């Protein structure tokens, strides 16, 4: 359905819409129990001592849920930020820079949290 001008500019569907739509729903559903768990985890450890928090996060099931949350949330955030940028940033150059930064942020924060959880789990 692309107009001749759109074809030349390379605009139009990237043909990955359904996959992105599904991934956003998949991570949304996964996030529901995981964020509830995360909020309770943080609130119940406000002001707790270091040993308690570290031992809590080192438990396999806790670490597994946190890891799942971090990865699922990072993917969900990447898609959401991308959607917002594509809707509101109309300058091509600025849009590409913003999309790059959003992706770097999502990947970076996801990796950082993963590394932290691995370190805590392995006790190093």
């Amino acid at each position, binding site marked *: 359905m692309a*107009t001749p*001008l759109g074809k030349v500019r390379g605009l139009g569907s990237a043909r990955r819409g359904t996959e992105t739509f599904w991934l956003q729903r998949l991570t*949304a559903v996964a996030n529901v129990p995981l964020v*509830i768990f*995360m909020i309770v985890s*943080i609130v119940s450890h406000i002001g*707790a001592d270091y040993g308690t928090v570290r031992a809590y996060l080192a438990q396999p099931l806790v670490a597994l849920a946190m890891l799942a949350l971090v990865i699922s949330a990072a993917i969900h955030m990447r898609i959401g*930020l991308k959607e917002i940028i594509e809707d509101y940033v109309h300058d091509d150059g600025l849009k590409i820079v913003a999309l790059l930064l959003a992706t770097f942020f999502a990947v970076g924060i996801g990796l950082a*949290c993963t590394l932290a959880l691995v370190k805590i789990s392995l006790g190093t």
Partner: protein
Amino acid sequence: MSNTTDARRPLSPHLQIYRPMLTMMMSIAHRISGASLAIGFILLAWWLLAVSIGPEAFATVNAFFASLFGRFLLFLFSWALIHHMLGGIRHLIWDTGRGLDLVSIEAFAWTTIIGSTVLTVLLWLVGYWLKGGA
């Protein structure tokens, strides 16, 4: 190929034409809460990284979280999270083609506002209860 770069296409009425309605406010609130959760993610990452680094790094984030401003920020974060979660569940229901009538969307809007507040307070009560009422 015709030159269509300066085609004067018809425009649909934009936001400022319409009377502000709760449902459109909830639509933008879903985006605002979603975007602000990126900042919340930093708080979570800071907490996890500090625990992995050691007691000194943890003491800093722990003191911040325990401060009045820290707890206020954490409360806002969790409220935005639950708000976005309920708004998301509303979207999942819409994906099935249900609840798209005017009565339902108004009900969803109020459920998200009241439900998110109640649920957030409830989660904090559970958290404090698990903590041992400290």
